[in-house]
């Protein structure tokens, strides 16, 4: 038994790592996201988005006359695992491009490898400004940290008429911290007052200590920059503590689970997003309908951005007319394309230039409120 186990394990390892990569009749694209671990739900959404884009293109005849093969790898949400996966996709699977990954810290471990190998990558949801600063092969499909916080602060000041604001964020997550800091800076610049600026540990379920402090400081608006799962709990707990004012947040709110978990507590909530599901543009309507048909649920922000990132990448390859990294990169730099999250063009630092919309939660539905141009 012992020996058999050992042999099986060795054989597995050897075949898994040295296994030959075959097939020349297809174009391989890498996809990366955390499919296991605590961020797994985000990686699963990302995988759905990537898969859907690839399936659509394949059904429509593929790319450059070949079928596209998506090789999706799990990064577990860990930088070290991310670096390994990038090496695997590039060195072993010989992908021509990579769409990934969710978390900035993991994208930052992968980006230098992509840059050195000349394999273009588009991160769907890594908002840290440093990601694309790694080099000219690195793009992203989402907003960068400062933008959403700034838009949120302007909205709170102008539209909600708030003069005293509070914020709560995840101390170990650069996305939520970045948004909150940008919100604070803009709100102070507008002449407002920050009455509380509170952090919570990653993975917390009880936010009442911080929220009690916030409620007692009596703000006009509370900025909650977490992902939907935390936002729902924070909303429930802050309402329990007697706060009835508006909550404002970022695109991490965009998930059908927000209202499923938060219920009535997330009413009077507003968030900045890339697009509205009420949008009448055909690309949006078609995407939402197809996604529901394929996976049985509404797409969240992660699935949408992954779909867009893959769509941009495939279009880039098509426009380049080649699978050479340098040509794809140049094609991407000059791209201008209508995707679900808006019309995307890349600026000089390879961040998308696109407008934001503000969505209101009303009667358990996401309702379009206004559009903000960058």
């Amino acid at each position: 038994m012992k020996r058999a186990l050992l042999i099986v394990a060795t054989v597995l390892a050897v075949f898994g790592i040295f296994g030959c990569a075959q097939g020349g009749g297809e174009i391989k694209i890498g996809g990366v996201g955390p499919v296991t671990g605590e961020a797994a739900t985000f990686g699963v959404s990302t995988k759905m988005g990537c898969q859907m884009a690839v399936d659509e293109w394949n059904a429509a005849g593929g790319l450059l006359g070949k079928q596209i093969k998506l090789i999706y790898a799990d990064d577990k949400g860990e930088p070290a695992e991310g670096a390994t996966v990038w090496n695997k996709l590039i060195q072993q699977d010989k992908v021509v491009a990579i769409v990934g990954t969710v978390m900035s810290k993991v994208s930052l471990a992968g980006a230098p490898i992509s840059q050195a190998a000349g394999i273009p990558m588009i991160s769907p949801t890594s908002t840290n400004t440093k990601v694309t600063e790694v080099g000219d092969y690195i793009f992203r499909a989402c907003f960068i940290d400062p933008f959403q916080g700034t838009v949120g602060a302007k909205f709170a000041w102008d539209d909600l008429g708030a003069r005293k604001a509070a914020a709560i964020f995840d101390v170990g997550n650069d996305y939520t911290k970045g948004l909150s800091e940008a919100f604070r800076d803009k709100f102070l610049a507008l002449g407002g007052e920050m009455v509380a600026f509170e952090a919570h540990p990653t993975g917390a379920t009880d936010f009442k200590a911080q929220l009690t402090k916030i409620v007692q400081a009596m703000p006009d608006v509370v900025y909650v920059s977490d992902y939907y799962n935390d936002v729902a709990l924070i909303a429930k707990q802050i309402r329990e503590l007697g706060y009835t004012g508006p909550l404002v947040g970022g695109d991490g709110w965009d998930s059908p689970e927000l209202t499923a978990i938060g219920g009535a507590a997330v009413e009077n909530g507003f968030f900045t997003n890339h697009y509205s599901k009420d949008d009448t543009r055909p690309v949006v309507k078609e995407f939402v309908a197809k996604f529901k048909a394929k996976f049985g649920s509404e797409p969240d922000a992660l699935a949408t951005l992954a779909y867009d990132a893959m769509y941009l990448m495939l279009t880039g390859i098509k426009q380049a007319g080649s699978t050479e990294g340098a040509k794809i990169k140049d094609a991407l730099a000059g791209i201008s394309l209508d995707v679900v999250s808006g019309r995307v063009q890349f600026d000089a630092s390879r961040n998308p230039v696109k407008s934001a919309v503000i969505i209101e939660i009303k009667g358990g539905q996401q309702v379009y409120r206004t559009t903000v141009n960058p």
Partner: protein
Amino acid sequence: MGSIINAQQIINGLQLGSIYALIALGYTMVYGIVRLINFAHGDFYMIGAYAAYGAFFLFNAVLGGAGGPMAVATLLFAMLAGLSIAALTNRFAYRPLRYKPKLSSLITAIGVSMFIEYVFSATPFIGASFRAFPAIIPQSLFKIGSATVSNYVVIDLAVAGTLMIGLTVLVKWTKLGKAMRAVSQDKDAARLMGIDIEKVISATFMIGGAFAGAAGLLAGMTYPRIFPYMGILPGLKAFIAAVLGGIGNIPGAMLGAYIMGLAETFASAYNSLLGEGIAFAILILVLLVRPRGLLGEKTADKI
């Protein structure tokens, strides 16, 4: 200091402590008997939450309605799920290693914990996503002075208190409890006295698992968001609470849990950026002063 220590924050701390207490009780019991840090205990708690979730929708479809009887039914179901998984884990993962070095059981426990989490996360109809936990008992709020209290806080406190008293009675005054204490003190002597120690250990695991299941349900109701990795952090905190109180000691686990809950709440209110770090620092200081936890007994080293 008014914004840090006030009635509301004390209630917040007590609520957090109650959830820790429910998990810590099972932890400390298992530890007391087999001297094993059962890393998978947090996952029993997660399974309890999922079982309650499933049971609620099942019962709701068959019987309809929510409220009291429904709450009792789901509670029993959650406890049953926790009990079963604890019994299975004990039988297949820990029992074969009973007389082997303690640390091999510890690594096995970590393996079991990872296994349960990843299986749940990879199972198609459970999946890695967050799920909204139903309000089995509708929430209601009332005021004590300036502080808002939710009926969940009261339920959590009451259940934790009842279970602690029940457990103390069980351990102190029943035959099973006597056997448990005997096994915990000296396995060989206990066997010579005619105690079937495997049965006693298995019963301990089952009780601990049932407690974890109940905790899963209560946590699900209080923080209505469940996912496969939800047990890691509370499991860790509960373990720390159990150690703080003196591991193996039932009132100690309860005390440790409430101290953890209050310390975390006050630390977060004092400086939310360093909140967790402060809580850990308090823990270390307490242990340096009382190396066997607050209520842990001083035992002489055996020579």
